[in-house]
């Protein structure tokens, strides 16, 4: 880790005074006034301020969860500044100004040239005309009636839709971090697919975020009306750095009758250095409501970054015959900690869910799968299949599996399979004896291990994810 990036990540929060309330950065700390300030600054309707205040009220009564299998020093929530005016990222004038460490990473990952520039914060028009690309993209979506914009914009332009759905899947008091997010979120993504519309392309945050940062409390809301379908891609394989250590996002998905929402994530937040210093705490609440009959919600995630990951993309299968899926690869190296998994809540009849979780631990890291399958008394004929595999690289890391299964209907069927394997010296020697070097060997073993998940990713994403894993595990074997 270069000094530049180290500094970037460890920068102390700027001190502020009460008199600066009118300025761009709010003073540190959280209270009702700060929440009112956020709401005013964003010109929000009264109902949204109420939403925030209710969340705050609940948050005050809650305690930080202690059950995840992760350790970190206590977070001082009064030491965080909860609002800074959205401003364009600092632009660099050429690729020469970009930190060479970052460029090396892009190189390794094979990130396309124009994306490298954009991601590193180089004024993109130097390299290519991004504005025109984004505009064509928006036009195409508008033609079919799809709304895809920042959530702040949606609050202004489509307040009724936001009001109708916000907080319906993740209620304001759902959990500690969701409550915090609901009180102070500053931006995020809104996406609405109208009745019968099949979204003509994958929706990618890459096209949305190039003008402003979403901040550390990101809020996403995706609605698929009857018979619609959409595939949404979050994140990118390039490493993401942030001066904020705590990230607590909330993502809500709503699928009405026969709607299909596929949500894919590649997460590569800064993970701290090889000694476990620094790194993002990523505490995310992601939940999809399969509300209508035959609806489907599918989560695919490749989690490689963050010092601590705490996240359980879940499905509430309410509609009859609705389907929930969770495909996950979580990689931890050095001193990273991940506690991730899913919840499948079967409520409707004949609902089906599939869980495929692949955890890879290397270095001194700790990787836990935590999953809940709940079959409600109403869910006659429900079925779940879960498969949780762990792979260990080296002997200083840990893998843990915590499956919780609650079946309250006799006609339901739940299957769970688990395995633990290890990339051993002898496997690598076997490859070497056939002329295959250890890097290629590890990549083959890892790809074999993750195959079932990578198959779920959109094509280019899958290729990038493969490289990302190789990069993340570089030097951990042999």
């Amino acid at each position, binding site marked *: 880790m270069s000094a530049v990036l180290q500094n970037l990540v460890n920068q102390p929060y700027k001190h502020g005074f009460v008199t600066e309330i009118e300025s761009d950065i709010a003073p540190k700390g959280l209270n009702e006034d700060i929440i009112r300030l956020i709401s005013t600054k964003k010109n929000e309707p009264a109902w949204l301020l109420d939403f925030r205040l209710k969340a705050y009220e609940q948050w005050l009564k809650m305690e930080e969860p202690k059950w995840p299998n992760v350790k970190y020093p206590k977070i001082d929530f009064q030491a965080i500044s909860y609002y800074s005016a959205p401003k364009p990222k600092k632009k660099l004038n050429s690729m020469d100004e970009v930190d060479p460490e970052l460029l090396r990473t892009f190189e390794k990952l094979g990130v396309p040239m124009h994306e490298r520039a954009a991601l590193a914060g180089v004024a993109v028009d130097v390299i290519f005309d991004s504005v025109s690309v984004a505009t064509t993209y928006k036009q195409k979506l508008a033609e079919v009636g799809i709304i895809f914009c920042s959530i702040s914009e949606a609050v202004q332009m489509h307040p009724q839709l936001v009001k109708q759905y916000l907080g319906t899947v993740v209620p304001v008091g759902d959990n500690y971090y969701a409550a915090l997010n609901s009180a102070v979120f500053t931006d995020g993504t809104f996406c609405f697919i109208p009745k019968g519309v099949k979204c003509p392309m994958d929706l990618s945050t890459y096209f949305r975020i190039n003008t402003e940062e979403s901040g550390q409390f990101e809020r996403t809301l995706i609605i698929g009306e009857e018979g619609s379908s959409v595939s949404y891609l979050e994140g990118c394989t390039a490493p993401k750095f942030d001066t904020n250590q705590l990230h607590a996002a909330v993502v809500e998905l709503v699928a009405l009758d026969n709607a299909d929402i596929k949500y894919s994530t590649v997460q590569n937040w800064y993970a701290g250095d090889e000694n476990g210093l620094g790194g993002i705490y990523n505490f995310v609440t992601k939940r999809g409501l399969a509300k209508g009959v035959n609806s489907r919600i599918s989560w695919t995630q490749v989690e490689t970054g963050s010092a601590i990951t705490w996240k359980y993309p879940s499905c509430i299968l309410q509609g009859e015959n609705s389907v929930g899926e969770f495909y996950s690869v979580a990689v931890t190296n050095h001193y990273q900690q991940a506690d991730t998994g899913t919840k499948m809540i079967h409520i409707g009849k004949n609902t089906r869910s599939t869980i495929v979780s692949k955890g890879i631990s290397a270095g001194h890291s700790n990787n836990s799968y935590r999953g809940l399958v709940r079959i409600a008394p109403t869910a006659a004929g429900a079925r779940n299949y879960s498969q949780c595999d762990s792979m260990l690289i080296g002997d200083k890391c840990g893998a843990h599996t915590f499956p919780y299964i609650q079946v309250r209907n006799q006609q339901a069927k739940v299957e769970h399979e688990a395995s633990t394997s290890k990339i051993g010296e002898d*496997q690598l020697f*076997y490859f*070497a*004896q056939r*002329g295959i*070097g250890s890097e290629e060997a590890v990549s*083959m073993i890892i790809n*074999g291990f993750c*195959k079932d998940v990578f198959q779920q990713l959109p094509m280019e994403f899958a290729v990038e994810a493969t490289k990302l894993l190789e990069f993340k595990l570089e030097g951990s074997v042999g």
Partner: protein
Amino acid sequence: MIHEDSKALLEIRGLRATVNGIEILKGIDLTVRSGEVHAIMGTNGSGKSTLAKVLAGHNAYQVTGGSITFEGNNLFDLEPEERARAGLFLAFQYPIEIPGVSNSHFLRLAYNTVQAQHGKDELDPLEFEDFVREKMKLLDMNPDFLDRGVNEGFSGGEKKRNEILQMALLEPRLAILDETDSGLDIDALRIVTNGVNKLATKDNAIILVTHYQRMLNYIVPDFVHVMQAGRIIKTGGKELALDLETRGYDWVGAEYHAAAEA
């Protein structure tokens, strides 16, 4: 077959090696020329597999003395994968399972790596499929094994066949077969040894590690070496194997110690 004009492929001089600080190989001398077949026999634990793995470069074993040249080059200068690419092949006594990695993908990558080393064309998956199926016929192997994970759930005998299949694909200069016969029934032994014999030429050489004479009825050695406690204590022709079969190993050890004391 011993040829007049054959070149020394492998020369081992005074080789010593340890594992976890325990000395296992205590001074091995062995010369293998192209075209030759050598059998190394000896009781369990005498160090046969250790010798094979030291040759292949397994990093659990530390070389503490001696030298090895392979085709005139210092073998210790080469990493394990470089040794393999240079034509040194080890058919493992216990081939390891690599779940999730498809056998056909693995075999093709190994094949292409060696092809690339020789500046030859690599094969794409379709071309390779045809090529490998031909080789499998030679060993009477079911093509279904291509779709399985590498050695995953293979029986002992199936693993051994898969090793020889790799030998057939890679066409090494020096093949070391470590107890390839164990775990094979009599029909399988005939098929596998027949396959090995077809691969033997005057330009390559084979070292067979075995307990039993049985295999040597099919692959006839030019030399038989007896290993004991990390040393080669006797070398003879193919008759020596027959002697060992009837008389056991004890007398060789007694003879060796008597000579050492004299």
